[in-house]
């Protein structure tokens, strides 16, 4: 006789080499994943959770295209073990828009053409979002410093800086809206 199954509470990360059960909080939602302990956060987001907005680049910590926010702070998901990030608030580029309403940074990046091939864009958007939440009126130098860990191989840095400045101005005028 088949037993009635009660859904198991996910165990905290521990146990075997083949599987850990993790409870991750991504873009404001609780997500349960069963994955290998040696999965990076980048792999878990893209392959286990289907959030492919976060990009694979150098895998060495040098390019920043894999940037996500953890508790509001930019980190490199390629150098993070998923199991280390249980219970933390993870934000990917998919979490920036509020429904159909784009984040002001997404709008100004589009308006100014601050993306060429676009591969670096998710990382830049999230790093810039963290900056503007901390400093609503950053100087050009502060923007350069905050974005120093994000590489654009198409080298469109000027447009990127301008887009961040315009988004900052828009956010100051309009006050908080949309996204997280």
């Amino acid at each position, binding site marked *: 006789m088949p037993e009635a199954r009660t859904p198991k509470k996910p165990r905290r*990360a*521990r146990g075997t080499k083949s599987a*850990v059960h993790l409870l991750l909080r991504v873009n404001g939602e609780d997500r349960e994943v069963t994955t*290998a302990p040696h999965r990076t956060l980048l792999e878990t987001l893209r392959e286990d959770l289907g959030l492919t907005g976060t990009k694979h680049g150098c895998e060495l910590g040098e390019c920043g295209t894999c940037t996500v926010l953890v508790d509001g702070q930019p980190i490199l998901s390629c*150098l*993070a*073990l998923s199991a280390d990030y249980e219970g933390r608030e993870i934000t990917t580029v998919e979490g920036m828009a509020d429904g159909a309403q784009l984040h002001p940074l997404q709008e100004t990046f589009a308006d100014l053409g601050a993306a060429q091939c676009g591969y670096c864009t998710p990382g830049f958007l999230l*790093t810039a979002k963290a900056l503007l939440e901390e400093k609503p009126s950053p100087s050009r130098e502060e923007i350069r410093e905050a974005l120093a860990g994000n590489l654009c191989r198409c080298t469109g840095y000027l447009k990127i800086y301008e887009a961040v400045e315009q988004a900052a101005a828009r956010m100051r005028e309009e006050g908080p809206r949309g996204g997280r």
Partner: protein
Amino acid sequence: MRAFEYLSPKTLEAASAAVRTAPEGARIIAGGQDLLGELKERIATPGRVVSLKAVPGLRGIREESGSLRIGALATVQEVAESPLVREKAPALAEAATSVGTPQIRALGTVGGNLCQRPRCWYYRLADFPCLKKGGGTCFAVEGDSRYHAILGGGPCHIVHPSDLAVALVALDASVEVVGAKGRRTIPIADLYALPAVDASRETTLAPDEIVAEVSVPAGARSAFRKFREKLSLDFAVVAAAVALGPKGPRVALGGVAPVPWRSREAEAALGAKPVTAESAAAAATAALAPAKPLKNNRYKVPLACAVLRRTILAAAGVADPGPPAPPATPAPTKKAGEDF
């Protein structure tokens, strides 16, 4: 990456035991900014990874009886931004600011920074069975040695990659470690040993010993300077830290040796007298006098000399009169392929 089991114990003692009892070897993970690179390249293939994230009491920076106490899990960014560190140990704050990128500083920890493995390109590629990986050769001797050691090298010629360690050696810091035999405190210089002692590792820690806290005497005038090729992010080609404390000057160089390199020659040249432009130049020259460059890194000698001279002046608050006049001897003629 090779598959491993992941543990997250709640005390340092349990973490140390988890490393000790691992049947297929184990590694500690703090911020992972160095370890993940090693795991991906399969230079490190532990069967177990032990995270420190759930161990309480390893974070934070506080002042206690004349010393700054910095937890092993304090991030590089927290050190860079700490008003306490900026005021009482400026060389350390400057070193932290120079590390990696904002993302790397956000996760990278003090303990991980001190225990990170070298960046030598032969070590970092699994294809090169170098001395450090248990092989028989240091490939830098015959190969491309432009970023390798000019002091203290042999049989392996790596340079130690940590910027924080250079500042901490100058600041006369000590490190508290926890292992099978309990806790012990050692001067930071004793955390490191030259490859002549054991080419397979950089620190003197037992595999199950964990750095818990760093203690830094507060209040010495100090400075840190770093020359790197890329400003946005780069390890030091050459770095220097100088502290002028009550026990006399302490001078350390980075990017030049397999350990953060304390220069007693420079300290003796500075002596107890107030720093002048002349004594700074003489001390820098003395520090580099024992240098033995390899095929491609002769350029590091004058570079380290200049960086150190400026760092001494910065620590003393003496205006930089510019470099001293070069010696009149003609430069040696280069063979093709020498120097880069």
